[in-house]
């Protein structure tokens, strides 16, 4: 059962320099799932995603499709099939929209399919096609977020990590973006691990959820269960 998992994290500790942020995190993501990570500021949500990509120090076990990633290079984690859309989007602002998508496919060898995928993302996000020779830095926040997601998916990842995709976006644009995520998950079977402050948005597409508190998993369960959980409702759904 565990072998089939896209992501299996056990006993994860992680942090920056002397500071330990994650004390003991265990979570998993099965193929085709959308899993959301909730938590207050400073609970360690972003650090969890960074730990998976090996951009911070880590202890414990991080398996991607059964292969241990701890101690590997970020470039190797990407090659193992993980794509990360960092907070603040991480687009290449000096590069054109088209070049951003090309870079997204950097680890791929199948040149022909890359062009087909670029066309695919242009058809999903027509705004990006209109701006394909513009520098990414000149796009609006929502467009940049679309570009960041399309860029990440250009690597045809087994697992997409999204870090607060709604941050700084207008509510309507966030909703639109999450509709896209839901569709991408259903239609293309892309597995996702989403960190999100806006639990309403996240629950709309999530299958399961984890709640982080002070660097540990405090609650976990199916999205339907957690949506009914009183503590979660008070803390993250604002009802």
């Amino acid at each position, binding site marked *: 059962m565990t072998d089939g998992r896209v992501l299996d994290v056990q006993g994860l500790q992680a942090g920056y320099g002397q500071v330990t942020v994650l004390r003991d995190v265990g979570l998993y993501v099965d193929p085709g799932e959308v899993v959301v990570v909730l938590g207050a500021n400073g609970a360690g949500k972003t650090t969890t995603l960074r730990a998976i990509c090996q951009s911070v120090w880590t202890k414990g076990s991080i398996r991607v499709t059964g292969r241990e990633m701890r101690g590997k290079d*970020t*470039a190797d984690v990407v090659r193992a099939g993980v794509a990360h859309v960092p907070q603040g989007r*991480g*687009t*290449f*602002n*000096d590069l054109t929209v088209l070049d951003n998508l090309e870079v997204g496919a*950097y*680890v791929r060898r199948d040149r022909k399919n890359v062009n087909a995928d670029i066309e695919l993302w242009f058809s999903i996000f027509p705004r990006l096609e209109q701006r394909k020779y513009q520098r990414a830095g000149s796009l609006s*926040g929502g467009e940049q977020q679309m570009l960041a997601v399309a860029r990440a998916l250009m690597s045809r990842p087994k697992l997409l990590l999204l870090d607060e995709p709604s941050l700084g976006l207008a509510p309507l644009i966030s909703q639109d973006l999450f509709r896209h995520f839901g569709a991408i998950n259903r239609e293309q079977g892309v597995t996702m691990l989403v960190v999100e402050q806006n639990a309403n948005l996240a629950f709309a597409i999530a299958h399961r959820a984890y709640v982080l508190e002070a660097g540990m998993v405090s609650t976990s369960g199916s999205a339907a269960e957690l949506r009914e959980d009183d503590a979660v409702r008070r803390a993250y759904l604002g009802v």
Partner: protein
Amino acid sequence: MSGGSTKTQVKAANGGLERGMVALRNVGARRMQTFGGLLAVLVVFSVWAVIDGGSKLLLQRTFDGLNNGFIYSAMALSLVLIYRSTGIINFAQGNMAMFGTFIAYVLIVEQGLSVVAGVIVAMVISAIGAAVIERLFVWPFDPKNHLAITIVTLSWYLIIAALAGIIWAFDPRAFPSPFPTGANDYVSIGGARIRYASLGIWATVLLTLVLVTQLLRRTKIGLAFRAVSSNLDSGRLVGIRIGRVVQLGWALSAAVGTLAGCLIAPSLLLDPNFMSKVLIYSFAAATLGGLDSLGGAVIGGLIIGLVQTMSGGYFKIIGSEFSLASALAVIIVILLVKPSGLFGSRRVERV
């Protein structure tokens, strides 16, 4: 199915047109204003210069200025390359080029290789040497720690100068030109002379510019280069091995630097300090062009070469002693008007 492919072809053709239109718009009015201003100054100066000394003298000084300019451009290209791949200014670049030129000298004069073969082998050796220096002395640092890396390059500036002094001492040596240098090897245009050796330098610099630009624009490694210089962290997150890109940047810029040194050496004399003056003007040229623009580096070099020659030639007060300083004064004025250089990319960022 065949209908679909025709459609994509039409689309691709439109893409080319579209790209052209956007590029045209990007060049835009702002840039035109700057160039309009420069052009006006140029026209006024030319008219005055023709009245002052005749058109033949102006033409000859233009060719001499271009000649100096291309020399600065060659070295400026190497500086822009390292800046684009690492975000640092490599102070050791000039002395690395000097060392590479000495290696070419040894291969050609002492080992008897042809000039062209000697230069090419020296370029390869410099590239390998720079890659090794990068791995041993730069790689251990965080690539974002620009200050530390700059200090490392300053140390290598001194180390390489000392090494060259120990090995080759400080007697100036004549360096053979790869181009014909006989007394009659020149073309005459409007009474002014351009030597074949000069034309050779101009052509080599332009060819280098084209090759390097195509490398950055059209190849996968070029895309990685541009991505890393735009956003290092995201570069990691798309799976680019940053270390290799940076190492390749060092190697490539060292090879171009050695080529520049070998082009410059025949008109100066080769000694361990021969690049120091050139380096300053090449820095200036690169800054003027915008530091991250290869074409800008070449144009920046040409402007500096021309201003230097014209001001020294036409204004007695400036003379040859102050002619280089006057070139720097021009740069300061241009940078006041356009802080990111003539062709540098202003960082556009909407958040």
